[in-house]
C-alpha cells in the first residue's frame, strides 16, 4: 500500500526506524517533517530507557520454595507406567483384548443400570430384607459377645477391682505409666545411631 507523502510515521514505521530499516519514502518524510523527527528522537530515548531497566531478582531461596510445592513425577514410576503401557497397547491383539474388556465392562454397567431402572420394587424389597437381616445379625452378635464376657471366670474379679474409684484411678495410673514407658522404649529402639556401630560394615 502506498503511503501519502504528508502522512506522519506510524508505530510500525517508528519500530522500523528504531531497528534501522525504515523504507525510502518514510525516510524522506522523516527528513522533511519536524514533528516526526521529534517523535522519533523521543521514541529512541524512550526505547533506550526501557531497554536499560533493571531486571529484578526474587529473594534467595525462591527456587527451593517453588520446588517445595511442585510434584515432580517419580522417574521410576513413569518408566514403569510407560513400559506397562507399551506392553498393554503394543500389539493389535492387546488393543483388541483391551477394547473387548472395555465393551464387556461398559455393557454390563449399562445393563445393570437399565435393569435397576425397570425393577424398582425388586430393589426396594431386597434393600428391606438386607437391612432387616443385617440388624438381626448385629443384635445377635452383640448379645453373644456380652454373654461370653460375663461368663468368663475373671469377669467377677475385674468387676470387683474396678468397683471403687480409688482402685480404678490406681489401675489407670499404672496402665498410663506402662504405656509411656513402652513409648520411650520403642523410641530408643528405633533411634538412628549417632556414633559408629561396631557390627556395621563400611
Amino acid at each position, binding site marked *: 500500500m502506498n503511503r501519502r507523502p504528508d502522512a506522519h510515521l506510524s*508505530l*510500525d514505521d517508528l519500530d522500523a526506524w528504531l531497528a534501522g530499516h525504515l523504507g525510502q519514502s518514510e525516510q524522506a518524510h522523516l527528513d522533511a517533517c519536524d514533528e516526526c523527527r521529534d*517523535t522519533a*528522537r*523521543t*521514541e529512541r*530515548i*524512550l*526505547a533506550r*530507557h*526501557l*531497554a536499560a*531497566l*533493571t*531486571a*529484578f*531478582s*526474587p*529473594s534467595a531461596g*525462591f*527456587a527451593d*520454595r*517453588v*520446588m517445595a*510445592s*511442585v*510434584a*515432580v*513425577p*517419580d*522417574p521410576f*514410576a*513413569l518408566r514403569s507406567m510407560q513400559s506397562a503401557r507399551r506392553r498393554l497397547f503394543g500389539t493389535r491383539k492387546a488393543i483388541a483384548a483391551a477394547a473387548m474388556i472395555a465393551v464387556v465392562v461398559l455393557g454390563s454397567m449399562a445393563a445393570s443400570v437399565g435393569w435397576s431402572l425397570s425393577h424398582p420394587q425388586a430393589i426396594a424389597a431386597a434393600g428391606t430384607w438386607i437391612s432387616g437381616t443385617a440388624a438381626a445379625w448385629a443384635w445377635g452378635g452383640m448379645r453373644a459377645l456380652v454373654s461370653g464376657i460375663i461368663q468368663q471366670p475373671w469377669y467377677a474379679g475385674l468387676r470387683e477391682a474396678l468397683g471403687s474409684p480409688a482402685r480404678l484411678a490406681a489401675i489407670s495410673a499404672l496402665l498410663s505409666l506402662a504405656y509411656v514407658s513402652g513409648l520411650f522404649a520403642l523410641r530408643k529402639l528405633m533411634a538412628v545411631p549417632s556414633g559408629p556401630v561396631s557390627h556395621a560394615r563400611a
Partner: protein
Amino acid sequence: MPSGRVDLAGATDQEVVALARHGQETAYRELVRRYERPIFSLVYRMVRDRELAEDLAQETFVKALNAIESYRPEFKFSSWIFKIANNAAIDHLRRRELDTLSLDGSPHAETPEAIEATALQIGDRQETALEEVEARELGGEIEVAIARLRPEYRSCILLRHVEGRAYEEIAEILGLPLGTVKTYIHRARNELRLSLAHLKQ
C-alpha cells in the same frame, strides 16, 4: 527418550521441558532459573509490591510446573509462562480494583454526608501508592511513568520493550488481537513520551 546427561544450560526450553516430563528435578530447577528474573520483574512492575510479586511469581511457577504435562511444545515455553504470570497479576489487580470500588461508602449509608463519611479517598490511595513506589526501588522516573499506565498497556509495553517480545508473541501471551496489542503499545508509548518529555533535554 531424553537422556539425563543433556547439558541443561545449553538445552532449548523444549528439551528442558521434555526432561522435566521424564521426572528430572534438575530440569524443573533449570526452568525456574531461566525464568525467575523475567517473570518476577514483570509481575513486580505490574503489582508494585515486592512481597506480593514474589507470591504471584511463585504461584506462576507452581502452576506452570505442576501442569507441565498440559504444555504444548508447538508453542514457546516463554509465551506460556508469561501468559500464566500476566494472568495472575491482572487477576490480582482486578480483585484489588473490586476491593477499592467496594470502599466507595457503606451500603447502609443513606444520606450523601454518610456516604462521604464512610468512603475511603481513592485519589489519596493512588497518590500514596505512587509515593510509596517512588520511595522504593521502582522509584526511577521511568518506573513511575510505567506504574501510571493502565495495567493492559503496562503488560504490553513491558513485554515489548523490557522483555523484547515480538508483537505476535505478545498477542499470544495476552490473548489479544495483534491490532489491539499494537494500539495498546502505541498509546502506552505516547503516554510515556508525555510523562518523560523533559528527558529529551
